[in-house]
């Protein structure tokens, strides 16, 4: 097994462990604080997935900038990997958020909430970049166009990140790193930490595997091109 796939496997194992701990070990929350305390356990999936999505979108930004300004093949592979990983983790976050929202707020989506909508747009952008890129033959025109969208899209990352700090409409604000004691006790924090580390390992493994796959695809295309006589 290659390094990327190994890291991916470790990440999967960690995510599985997080799910088990979240469902079987993490303490229940107060019925006074939540409309649906059972659904709160989605939190251990939702927050680490969102964290991993931000890492993936960061990789998409770096890869896009690296292609546009340095014409680096390696950076293009990072763009591809970042967009695919961003799509996967973005959908995980949106899907889990909708399920949790339906149970807690009585609605899966709120068009007036800035955090929800900017994150939704970010995920749509990842879908657009992945599907759009796959619809085109590889070439500088395709790479320039989608790398530009990767750069534009990154504007949404800081907006999404600060959204709940500035406009708390429906989505709650940050629960860790706020400077006060917060609403998370030790066991909850531990499960969340395992989840965040597992998702980070998963996303790194995903991107390593994806970059290797893209490199193999590029090698195959070069070989086909040579067989065609370089025309």
């Amino acid at each position, binding site marked *: 097994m290659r390094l990327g796939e190994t890291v991916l496997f470790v990440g999967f194992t960690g995510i599985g462990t997080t799910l088990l701990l979240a469902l079987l070990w993490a303490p229940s929350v107060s019925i006074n604080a939540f409309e649906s305390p059972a659904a709160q356990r989605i939190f251990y999936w939702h927050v680490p997935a969102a964290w991993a999505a931000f890492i993936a979108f960061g990789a998409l930004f770096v890869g896009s900038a690296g292609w546009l300004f340095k014409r680096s093949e390696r950076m293009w592979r990072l763009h591809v990997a970042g967009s695919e990983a961003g799509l996967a983790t973005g959908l995980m976050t949106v899907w889990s958020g909708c399920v949790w929202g339906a149970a807690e707020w009585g609605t899966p989506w709120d068009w007036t909430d800035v955090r929800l909508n900017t994150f939704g747009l970010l995920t749509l952008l990842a879908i*657009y970049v992945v599907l759009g890129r796959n619809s085109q033959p590889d070439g*500088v025109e395709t790479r320039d166009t989608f790398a530009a969208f990767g750069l534009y899209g990154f504007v949404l990352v800081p907006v999404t990140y600060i959204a709940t700090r500035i406009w708390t409409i429906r989505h709650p604000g940050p629960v860790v790193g706020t400077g006060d004691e917060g609403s998370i006790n030790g066991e909850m924090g531990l499960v969340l930490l395992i989840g965040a580390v597992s998702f980070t390992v998963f996303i790194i493994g995903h991107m390593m595997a994806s970059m290797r796959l893209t490199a193999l695809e590029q090698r195959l*295309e070069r070989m086909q091109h040579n067989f065609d006589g370089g025309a």
Partner: protein
Amino acid sequence: MAKALLNLVDVQVRRGMNTVLEGCTLAVGAGQTVVLTGANGAGKSTLLETAAGLLPMEQGHVEHGEVVVADADGRRRPSPLTVGMTLQRNGVLGSELVAEHLQTAMSMSGHSVDIDPFLEAFNLMHRANDLVAHLSQGQARKVAVLAGLLPAFASPTPALIILDEPDAGLDDASIEILGQWLNELRAMGHALLVATHDERVMTQATHLYNTDQSEVETTTEPPVGKVDARTSREVKPLSPSAFGVKIHLRTMMWLNTNAMAGLLTLGILLTLGDFMEELDNLQRMGFILAPTLAVGLCGEPLVAALREERAGVWWRAVGGGEPHAGWIPLAIGAVFTFLTTNGLQDAREIHIILTGAVLCFVVWHSVGWMQRSTQRLARPHAVFIGLLTPVLILPYSILIGLLA
């Protein structure tokens, strides 16, 4: 050495996964005709489109006169010269009239000449007021060639003429006439860059540039023929926006896409019955502006139309930008907001109608910008551009919030 009107300096261009031009340096002076030769796929069309400032470069830059019009950092400036261009495709919409397209091409130079002698020479006089869509392929090609040449005939100052296989699809008599016109334009002091495989056109060259070997060869200068006296007069250049409005009004293409989306949305709202009384202000405004939003979300129908014969690319080469609907979304937005307030029996307040017009304008042109951003791709129609349109819910929600 004649004063260079076109300079390509150390240009590298990639297309797809191939480097098509590498270290390409070429100058075309006033009164020179440089003919590009080389096998199919050697990069003649790439060189011509790069010279027109249409293609992005990996390195180097392109100068028109003293001005750098395009460089490897992506900077673009309008050409200070009159540029005439004939693409390999015709670059003309089927919805344009023959004479109208030629006048449009000439108007870019701010001057115009009588087109009748040119139409007569190409046996197109009887077709002057026909739609280009009604012409045969050969006739449409003649129109495209004339649109490349006439700006120079009209221009009182030296112009840059770029022709990509102008002889393709022309009969023998027309190629003879084309050769005479090329000769005449060179004698008038214009700079010509021509790609061709036709020996008769090649005889007009002062220089041959072999794209296979990136070498310039000076030829025996062809004798200067007769230059006909033509009177040029000043005309107002037609902007891409004015052209876009004209095509929209003529073809009513907005009716098939934008207006139908708005009408369907309004129709759905009307089937819901008399519900406006029960809504709060925010919801009421949301419903009133929903058909207008639907109109805008369909985007700019001209973007797809301009892919026909690469008409959008021709406009970018000679007119500085792609045509668009201009003020039309304002009018359609106002009409739809008015219709919706009537249909839903709400108060017809002028500020709501104006807001609808602005919303339609912003959303329509934003989607148009998204559509145009993918035009460089090999298959722009295959991109999932609709996935990006939900971002436009933001101006919609801001506007209904302000109105409420």
